């Protein structure tokens, strides 16, 4: 997990929040803290962040990847691991990915 990915996630989550002040703790919270313990992290927020992550990192988040990242509460660390795994898979697949595998 890279600190750079975690840093980008912090920015994406703040941008996805309807009230950034409510989400301010995400700027500095530990990467392994469940996001739902540091800020209101509703389903709308969670899936909004995933849409933003797909756009930002050029990946397709699959249902198993999402289940793994959300199991026991999503954290920056789990989301970063998910992103890096999906980026790795995408790199192995080459330029023609399997967009139907969502």
């Amino acid at each position, binding site marked *: 997990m890279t600190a750079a990915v975690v840093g980008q996630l912090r920015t994406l989550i703040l941008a996805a929040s*309807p009230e950034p002040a409510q989400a301010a703790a995400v700027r500095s919270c530990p990467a392994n803290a469940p996001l739902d*313990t540091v800020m209101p992290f509703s389903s709308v927020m969670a899936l909004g962040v995933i849409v933003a992550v797909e756009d930002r990192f050029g990946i397709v988040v699959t249902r198993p990847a999402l289940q793994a990242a959300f199991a026991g509460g999503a954290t920056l660390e789990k989301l970063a691991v998910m992103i890096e795994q999906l980026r790795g898979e995408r790199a192995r697949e080459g330029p023609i990915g399997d967009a139907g595998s969502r």
Partner: protein
Amino acid sequence: MTRVRADDLSSVPGDSRPLRQEERRELHALRLRGPRREEWIRGRVAIRRAVARWLPQASSYRVHTEPSGAPSVVGVDCTISLSHDGRWFAVALAPTRDLRIGIDLCRRVHVNRLAPILRRFTRRGVQLDPVVQWAALECVLKMRGLGITALVGSDATVRRAGHRALVRGIGPDATLHVIDRPEFVVVWGSENSR
């Protein structure tokens, strides 16, 4: 009979004074912080107010947090569901344990976030007002104890008919109630648990 109410609880202090001892222990164990901690406390206040209003004979009860995070009431026969978004808190309460109930309150401020989410995660995309559609889907998921990942790739349809919404494709068909307010939408429903 299921009763429903939505309240603005922004004036309720977000400290732990209103909580009972066991609820304080749960709060401590959850390690919630800042606005999330206040939100959790206000949710307990909303449930306590609902019980006091609709089950005034109940004297000794407490709000318990299930492992899933969903609240329940211990010490009085009832089923509850809680939803909150910003300053708004909605509670549905049925005076029996034989029902499964679900409620979702979604503020209209999310409308531009919801359309891309519905397009991305559900096969049928946006079918009606995204706020109503989202609240209806969330309500069914909550009523059936399903997480949001159940939505991914879902073929669910949502149809609106007046103050009702019909959801098909997430288990049995569900007919839900829709309450429109200028700032938010509340969708709630109930079904037999047996």
